[in-house]
């Protein structure tokens, strides 16, 4: 039998489990085009906000051994123009689109949801990973069970689309956050967002390399952190997980599946291996299946769940 990467995600059939994650290649409909041409099975928009944002001043990326730092600053053309790009994409393609939205409070998330309801997108992803907004106990929004629960719950009440909660890795107890989202009826989780943040210094000019000083880590070196958090979460919740963080080769994607991911995001690897990375990883996953005698993704086993 022909090995296949076909799978289902929240009821929609996809030809590859690889997801273009939020913010990578992601302002223009043509960024989606080229990603699916190169083998992505789902695409995610840049996180859209109510108003356009030009983001932080450059430099907004810096490389280090094992990954990159970025402080794009959520630059995006705003929800209206952003959705227009998605609709333009959807005119030509039926590949599912996740629209990512970002806000710092429930009201704004609801406003964004209303916009999204009128779009052609397939899924709504809530970027709940903001490290700069705190709840009443001084806990970052992304780490507050209550905030996560309340936002997801409110959005679920009005969203016409399945809702995905995108979680931050920088929390003490990922399981409680994941459960808070699940109990608010999130349809899926997306994890992980960038790690850290971190900083690099130019030793000649004695300045932080990033103008914003700090930026989140992505790329190969965050894979171990992603796998651990995904595995813990998979062991504790029943909703599917979009697993991402450092996936660069087919092996990494298989690790994500074994840790419990339903589908797999490939972001920073676009830099390391070109936009063809999706096709390359698809190919490598098929080779792995061939070597290890799996017919379909479903057959690839998961790790035994953590107890407790």
């Amino acid at each position, binding site marked *: 039998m022909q090995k296949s990467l076909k799978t289902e995600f929240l009821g929609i059939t996809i030809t590859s489990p690889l997801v273009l994650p939020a913010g990578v290649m992601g302002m223009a409909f043509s960024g989606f085009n080229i990603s699916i041409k190169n083998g992505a099975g789902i695409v995610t928009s*840049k996180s859209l906000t109510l108003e356009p*944002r030009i983001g932080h001043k450059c430099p907004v990326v810096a490389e280090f*051994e094992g990954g990159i730092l*970025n402080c794009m600053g959520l630059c995006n053309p705003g929800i209206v123009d952003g959705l227009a790009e998605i609709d333009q994409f959807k005119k030509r393609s039926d590949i599912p689109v996740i629209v990512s939205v970002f806000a710092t409070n429930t009201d704004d998330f609801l406003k964004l949801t209303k916009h999204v309801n009128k779009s052609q997108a397939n899924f709504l992803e809530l970027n709940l990973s903001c490290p700069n907004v705190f709840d009443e106990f001084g806990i970052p929004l992304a780490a507050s069970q209550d905030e996560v629960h309340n936002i997801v719950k409110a959005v679920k009440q009005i969203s016409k689309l399945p809702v995905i909660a995108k979680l931050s890795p920088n929390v003490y107890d990922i399981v409680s956050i994941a459960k808070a989202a699940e109990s608010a009826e999130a349809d899926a989780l997306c994890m992980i967002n960038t790690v850290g943040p971190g900083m690099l210094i130019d030793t000649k000019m004695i300045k932080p390399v990033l103008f914003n000083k700090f930026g989140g880590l992505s790329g190969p070196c965050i894979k171990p952190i992603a796998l651990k958090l995904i595995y813990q979460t998979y062991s504790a919740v029943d909703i599917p997980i979009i697993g991402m963080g450092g996936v660069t080769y087919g092996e990494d994607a298989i690790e994500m599946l074994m840790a419990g991911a339903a589908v797999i995001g490939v972001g920073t690897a676009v830099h390391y291996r070109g936009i063809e990375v999706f096709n390359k990883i698809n190919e490598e996953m098929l080779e792995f299946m061939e070597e290890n005698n799996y017919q379909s993704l479903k057959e690839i086993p998961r790790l035994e769940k953590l107890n407790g």
Partner: protein
Amino acid sequence: MDKRYTLKIDRIVEETSDIKTFTFKHDLTAKPGQFIMLTDFEGGEKPFSISECSDEKFSITVKRIGEFTTRLFQKCIGDYVSIRGAYGSSFFISKNKVLLVGGGYAIPTFYFFAKVLLGAGADVTLINGARTKSEHVFADRFHELNIKVINTTDDGSFGEKGTAIEIAKKIISQEKFDFIYASGPEMMMKAMQNALQDQDRVQDQEQGLDYEFLFERYMKCAIGICGNCTMDPLGLRLCVEGPVLPKCKVEQLTEFGKYHRDASGKRHEF
């Protein structure tokens, strides 16, 4: 991993009142058409084409436009700036008869390119345009090369009178070129494309004249991940698949000469 290099400015040449060439001692190993990202860590990191490049040094030629380039213009020899790259695609190196058409701050990258073309044995004609004499650059440097140079200004204050495109139109109707390269304002390149298409119709060629254009789009990461510089509808990332695009791609670009995206990704008409 692409390394960042923090370098002292080794030399500054004032080309015009608002164009300067900055030279750095560094082995960049760039190809013509490629660019670097340059920052002073004071806010802003911008792409600049390479106007000269050898094993020991390289240059960029910069027009003062806004906040960033104004600050750059205040720097002196010995001041540090930080660069990464070279990035992006480069020009096809023809061995035959080629025409280079450009204007303003976009012409110096052809100086680097012309030398490489000559090394490859090409027969090079250059149209170096500007609005007026005081904005015209690199005339003397191109003059020293073994190429045919046609200087033009819109107002006729230096070289022939007319836009670079008007001159180009004339010359491609008279001479047969194997390859055309253009670098300059987008609407100039759009006009160039029209001129080439007209010429193809006149000559009734099957293939048509082959060309490459050097594009500019707002760049942030320059390493192909942020998507800020993608061109519709192909999703070409100008920082990776560009800035030099071949005819077969250019012909498919629906946004060429129509709109570009700003730092937020919002579209703006030209």
